[in-house]
């Protein structure tokens, strides 16, 4: 890119990154199926005690919960994601619970090199003060989308969580003076 387009992209991310990170993108025709890996929005969790698990059972009784949020004994919080399409609902629910930070994850092709949760890092410029956040995709960190599972077979393949970042909900990613003139 040119210097201008690079700067413009940086400005957009700095000023509007949280808006984009939490945009609820339409998934035509397959609203309740995992169409492709996408942003999973979670939270900082001011939730209760050690070992407490909050399960938001959005699926059928026989299905795994859409996601689960667990406070670990070391104070960190693990967000397990099973159904990506439920994330906006989960995020809204967590926001309603007074959560003031949000989680964004980035998927990449291929299986996870190491199974288990990935520890998230603060997004650049984000003012993050909550407990350490970890994300686990599926049961072991690897997600397989098979042919026939998604409309038009979009996103068929094997994916893993590449990295995840935490945004502050207030003033996150905005260092101020951007574009001031």
């Amino acid at each position: 890119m040119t210097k201008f387009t690079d700067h413009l992209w940086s400005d957009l991310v700095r000023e509007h990154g949280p808006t984009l990170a939490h945009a609820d993108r339409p998934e035509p025709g397959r609203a309740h199926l995992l169409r492709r890996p996408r942003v999973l929005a979670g939270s900082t969790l001011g939730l209760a005690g050690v070992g407490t698990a909050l399960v938001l059972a959005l699926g059928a009784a026989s299905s795994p919960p859409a996601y689960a949020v667990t406070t670990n004994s070391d104070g960190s919080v693990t967000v397990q994601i099973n159904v990506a399409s439920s994330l906006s609902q989960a995020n809204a629910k967590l926001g309603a619970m007074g959560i003031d930070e949000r989680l964004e994850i980035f998927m990449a092709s291929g299986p996870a090199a190491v199974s288990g949760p990935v520890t998230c890092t603060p997004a650049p410029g984000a003012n993050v003060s909550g407990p350490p956040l970890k994300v686990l995709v599926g049961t072991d960190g690897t997600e397989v989308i098979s042919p026939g599972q998604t409309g038009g077979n979009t996103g068929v393949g094997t994916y893993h969580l590449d990295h995840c970042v935490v945004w502050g909900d207030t003033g996150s990613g905005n260092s101020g003076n951007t574009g001031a003139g």
Partner: protein
Amino acid sequence: MSTEASALVRTMRERPVAVRARSRGGPPSSPLEEFEQVYLRNVDVLMGYFARRCRDPQTVADLTSETFVRAVDGFARFDPSRGSDRAWLFGIATHVFASHCEQSAGGRDAVARLGGHRPLDEDEIEELAERIDAESEGVALMRRCAQLPAVERAAIELVDLEELTPKEAALALGVSRVAFRKRLSRARSRLRKEQHSND
């Protein structure tokens, strides 16, 4: 496509592409990454769109910035199954430029929603000035279209310069496909007649 438009399109295709692939090759894994791909695919052509209308690098920068800021606002509503991201962005750019013209006519400063008007540094001004120069042929074509009604000029520009399909261009301009095809056909016919009369 008219002869002059064909020549221009060839020139534009040879133009260096000022984007680099930052995607990891798979489908976007987040709205932010999806938007980044939309940005990379379109930022250069949108700069070209504004560079054909404005000779001032700062204005081109502001209008391009404003288009993407508005795109951020509307990204949650953008459905790729209903039209391409380029058509969607040109629809926004059309409104951004119209607003700019209205504001300029009213003596007000144009756009500056990225936390304010960010002055360009010398390198950026030079880059944008080169981008504006690169649009000289496009500007020439648009001047040849000057006698056409605005909707017909827009039809020629979006299809013959920007290579949108008629369906995409119709979406960008907010008109029906049938109406758009009529306008495009009429515009090309008028250009051909003008060309013959000049020959």
